[in-house]
């Protein structure tokens, strides 16, 4: 395994059991997260991006389950770890930040107690005073005055609560932070500040960040690479400049064109036909083919293989498979 890859999934599949049968919420996804990068994972509701984020920490609860694939994190296959070993990975090595910090923080616990409890659970030898000192130093780096540590979560603003969530991940020096829609409940100015902070933290702590979001603008703003999911499958992955300049998958193309842009002179947005498929009964072949303006006969029959089509940019689309065979 290459050393610059921190996390790597191979053919990861997550199924949800429903009355009408199994749903592949994540369908054979192979994704590499490189050390020190901010990887933006985008897609619309129901595409499986949050499920993928949870699966990376093995946090899928019944009726869902990881039904196949490998999870290689920092040299270990997490699928082979016991639940107890996983608990050390969660929080300790992989931190998580969710959309709504209010539901992730305990309302009757002071902010400081969240931090010292986290530190002392994972590192029982650390004294309370030492844990507090570490917490104080950390939150000040994140722009929260140390006096605020004695506040309860409801006394903080939304932006501050989100910074507390990040501090919980950093308190144990997590290598990877999975942030699921971390800015969705924030106002734009607070959001912009939070994105600045993420960039600074990445540089200072050598952090790797997986940023799961529906907001394409946020990805363009902070990500180094971007991964686009559609109907449980990976549609496209690549360098953020490459994907935004020359998206390969027709879904990525449509998605990027339908994002409102305050800078351009365009006065109309691209309107993508149709809506994402029902995963109980997914389309045959490429899941995007019923909506795809460039669909061919083969698209309805066979699933395209995900592969690199230009250096640093991979996609699963027959348009490029054909090019490859023609050469």
């Amino acid at each position: 395994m290459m050393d610059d890859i921190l996390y790597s999934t191979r053919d990861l599949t997550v199924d949800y059991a429903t009355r009408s049968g199994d749903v592949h919420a994540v369908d054979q996804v192979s994704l590499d997260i490189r050390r020190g990068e901010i990887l933006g994972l985008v897609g619309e509701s129901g595409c499986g991006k949050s499920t993928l984020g949870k699966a990376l920490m093995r946090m899928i609860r019944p009726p869902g389950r990881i039904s196949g694939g490998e999870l290689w994190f920092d040299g270990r296959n997490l699928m082979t770890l016991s639940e107890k070993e996983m608990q050390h990975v969660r929080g300790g090595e992989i931190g998580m930040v969710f959309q709504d910090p209010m539901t992730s923080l305990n309302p009757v616990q002071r902010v400081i107690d969240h931090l010292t409890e986290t530190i002392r659970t994972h590192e029982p030898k650390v004294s309370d005073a030492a844990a507090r000192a570490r917490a104080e130093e950390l939150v000040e780096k994140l722009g929260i005055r140390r006096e605020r540590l004695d506040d309860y979560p409801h006394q903080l603003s939304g932006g501050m609560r989100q910074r507390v969530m990040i501090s919980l991940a950093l308190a144990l020096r997590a290598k990877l932070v999975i942030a699921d829609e971390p800015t969705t409940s924030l106002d734009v100015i607070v959001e912009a500040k939070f994105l600045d902070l993420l960039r600074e933290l990445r540089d200072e702590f050598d952090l790797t960040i997986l940023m799961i979001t529906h907001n394409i603008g946020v990805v363009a703003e902070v990500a180094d690479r971007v991964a686009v999911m559609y109907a449980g499958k990976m549609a496209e992955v690549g360098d953020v400049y490459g994907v935004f300049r020359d998206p390969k998958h027709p879904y990525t193309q449509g998605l990027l064109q339908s994002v409102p842009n305050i800078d351009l002179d365009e006065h109309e947005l691209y309107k993508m036909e149709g809506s994402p498929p029902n995963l109980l009964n997914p389309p045959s072949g490429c899941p995007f083919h019923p909506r795809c303006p460039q669909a061919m006969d083969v698209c309805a029959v066979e699933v395209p293989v995900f592969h690199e089509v230009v250096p640093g940019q991979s996609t699963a689309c027959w348009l490029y498979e054909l090019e490859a065979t023609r050469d």
Partner: protein
Amino acid sequence: MTEALVQVRDLRKWFPVKQGFLAALTGEERQYVRAVDGVSFDIRKGEVFGLAGESGSGKSTVGRLVLRLLEPTDGSVVFDGVDLAGLSAEEMRKLRHRMQVVFQDPLASLNPRMTIGEAIEHPARIHMPQLSPEERRALVLRMLEQVGMVPPEFFYSKYPHQISGGQRQRIVFARGMITAPDLIVADEPIAMADVSVRALLLDLMMQLKDEFDLTYLFITHDLATAKYVCDRIAVMYLGKIVEVGPLEDVYTNPQHPYTRALLDAVPVPDPLHRRTEPLPAGEIPNPINPPSGCRFHPRCPIAQEGICDGEIPPLLPVAGNPEHRAACFLRTGEYQHLDPLR
């Protein structure tokens, strides 16, 4: 100039803060959240007037005051020449069919036990008693078609949970349109929709506007989306309008430092245009005791002591253009010579 459909003047809404028993006993002064604190604007016939701002700016409260879903603390709303404050509940009810509202969450706006057809028909039952049941049904089917729910007979008997989020918002629009209103207050109507659905809903809004001669009050936190639909826009901060004008003027030549900051902070979907401008310090202050003078002054990069923290700046024309106005002493007021960036 086109006629105003809605005239809002010096509108105020102060919500009393819950007071403890002891505080009331000791005669402690009651505190208020000044959600809307002296707001004036016109919505012209046939336009899309945008009201933008962050959470707590008071934009949604203004929307509810315009519809008189809330009683103002002070000030007036005149709808098509009629002062709403003077109307009795009965008179207000008679006017209601001319103004409709669309909220952010269509699932919360629809009764889960009513079929889509019944939901759309409901306002017609109340406001159009002259119609026979057959006529009403025909009208509902026409509305369904109008919002792109075809075949209408198929959707008529569906329940809200059986259709997608984007389709639900279409139903809410159809229900709003059935009484042929003049004004639609759309409060974050597309905030919950996915990117690909947003474009379709915006398109629907504009289509309905053309077909039914609608006027919109479009309330949003998303300046990028506002760009595609609004003719004019007002930016609110802590209960006050800081800048108002034709969308293009406000976006290309923002005068109030807050408007500028808000526009700069919007993430652009292009990695080649990453933001480099600094952001304003701090966060939105408490609306219970808002800062003196210009409410933005504690966070403002150009604020001057002794000026911006004293009086409240009035909305004044930008470079003599009465259409574009901003409330900043250093940009449009009498202290322009003190603007450090000039």
